[in-house]
């Protein structure tokens, strides 16, 4: 087994560090959390460095990259920035459009991205009554006599929903009942009559605003559909696996940042006449934090490597999300404990990392649903 990075991967990580150091300064990060946004300048620089084009097909101006390399890039983007910025999540909706969209949708999405540095669309998936239980969603698109469709329903936790010009909506075809598994993806323009939003306020990740999206008899035309009718859910599921892995890449990057801060602080903070890093109970915390970070990282890159090899990762991606997001959150929690009172203030960033990382224990699929997916797979794997 070769764990070494290639020259190219190392240089990419150096570029990511240069980018983060230049743009995510302490003042800018503070401002992002206060204003619930990110300066356009950063989105543009991210585009110019080509980071946002990684994994987009070459014929659309993208840069082909394997998933291990993309994972490495994401981890470093979050470790070095030390904040839960939007940059990587931006790519997720772009991936969906490039994979499932029509030619016209792909062209428009790339033009918009190259012009602004921002993705064209948010993702409207969850509903107040249907998060991990996607089948319970009630948003529905019904065909009208004139050949158009009418879309109705409510979506929630839509990241950047009120900011980006479009949203990708998953809706049931014709019939909103639980038994209907036929769904489609629609690319809906936010300024279409019948589309409205209401802000939601977060306890962490404040620099990435999310909102509710209301869809009241929104008229859609066939060319707004992404991919084949009826297969919307399967399409989303297909990308869920890699998305989960990328969320863990963010999470382990943030955990590494928290670990580095805490270890540095433990070396400086004097209690009982010596640095607290010399106290055994602090050493135990630090050791377990490092173990969790390294374990998560090993699972992450193994899973991404398997995907690159074309292997099924239904089990691995669910285990990774479940283990990685919670273990890394525990790292942040221990970091906060090492900082104690100081960590509970806004003077240091560890509390912010802690609140940001808590969100990744349900964003992209809850901890519990991951156990459900993984458990079934484990039972199947060892069935006689």
């Amino acid at each position, binding site marked *: 087994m070769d764990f070494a990075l290639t020259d190219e991967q190392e*240089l990419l990580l*150096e*570029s990511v560090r240069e980018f983060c150091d230049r743009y995510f300064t302490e003042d800018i990060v503070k401002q992002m959390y206060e204003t619930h946004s990110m300066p356009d300048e950063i989105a543009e*620089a991210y585009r*110019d460095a080509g980071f946002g084009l990684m994994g987009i097909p070459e014929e659309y101006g993208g*840069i082909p990259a394997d998933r291990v390399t993309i994972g490495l890039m994401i981890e470093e983007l979050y470790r070095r920035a030390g904040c839960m910025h939007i940059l990587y999540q931006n790519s997720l909706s772009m991936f969906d459009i490039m994979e499932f969209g029509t030619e016209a949708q792909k062209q428009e999405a790339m033009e918009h991205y190259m012009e602004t540095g921002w993705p064209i669309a948010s993702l409207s998936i969850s509903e107040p009554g249907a998060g991990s239980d996607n089948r319970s969603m009630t948003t529905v698109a019904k065909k009208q006599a004139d050949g158009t469709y009418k879309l109705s329903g409510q979506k929630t936790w839509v990241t950047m929903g009120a900011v980006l010009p479009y949203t990708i909506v998953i809706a049931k075809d014709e019939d909103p009942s639980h038994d209907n598994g036929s769904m489609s993806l629609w690319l809906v323009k936010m300024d279409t009559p019948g589309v409205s939003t209401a802000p939601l306020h977060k306890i962490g990740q404040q620099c990435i605003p999310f909102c509710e999206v209301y869809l009241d008899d929104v008229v859609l035309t066939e060319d707004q559909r992404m991919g084949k009718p009826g297969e919307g859910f399967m399409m989303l599921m297909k990308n869920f696996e890699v998305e989960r892995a990328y969320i863990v890449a963010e999470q382990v990057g943030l955990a590494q940042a928290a670990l580095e801060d805490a270890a540095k602080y433990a070396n400086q903070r004097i209690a009982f006449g010596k640095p607290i890093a010399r106290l055994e109970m602090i050493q135990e915390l630090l050791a377990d934090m490092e173990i969790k970070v390294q374990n998560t990282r090993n699972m992450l890159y193994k899973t991404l490597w398997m995907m690159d090899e074309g292997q099924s990762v239904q089990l691995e991606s669910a285990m990774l999300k479940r283990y990685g997001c919670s273990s890394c959150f525990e790292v942040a929690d221990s970091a906060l404990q090492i900082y104690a009172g100081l960590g509970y203030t806004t003077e240091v960033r560890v509390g912010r990392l802690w609140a940001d990382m808590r969100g990744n224990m349900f964003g992209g699929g809850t901890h519990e649903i991951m156990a459900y997916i993984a458990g079934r797979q484990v039972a199947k794997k060892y069935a006689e």
Partner: protein
Amino acid sequence: MRIAVAFKAVPDSQDVQVASDRTLDFSKAKLTISEYDKNAIEAGARAAAASGGETVAVTVGGSDIDNSKLKKDVLARGMDRLVMLADDALAGLDAAATASALAGALSKAGDVDLVLCGDGSADDYAQQVDVQLAEKLGWPVVTAAAQVEVNGATTVIVRALEDCTETVEVELPAVVSVTPDAAEPRIPGMKDILAAGKKPMEVSAADGPCERALETVECLAPEQAARKQEIVDAANDGAIEKLAAAIKAAL
């Protein structure tokens, strides 16, 4: 139009450690492009893009600079090709010896119209190689260039000097060294990085022995001046007054 950019590979200063005997320990430091040379590389890449010319990066140093990552790093920053002399005979040279070796490397690069240098190297920061190189080549040199505009055979440079801003015209070929303000280095993307490995790299040994004009008598970390380190919180009663009194006492 061919623009050469001279750069230096130095140990990454963040990983240079001070040993207990105050000597410097470079064993954990990886080689990297000296920080201000990145500005020269960027200035060269931009000037070549504007004039449709070719860029060639040149460097000399110990055999360890023949490092695949370092070479790709330079070529990912807008250079078309690389000429490198890597030889232990070329390790730790002074400015005169460096300039002689660089002149040799340049002769392998083909006819060059303009040589760009950075503001100073991360280790020596003597700002001497540019001048010494110009003397070896018999060319004019313009240092402290905050703006460089190549107009055909003439280059117009705005120099940021201590007491004035001086506009200078120089006929090429010439050596020009740029300040960090001249061009902010690009952040190489994956496309640049992947392309770098496919660009021509010419690595050879030293042409002959290199004599050093300077000898190093000592090189040690300075002993820290003992400071009182009396720290107070601004919120404490009388903190400001105490500080004011300390300043008055020191004057």
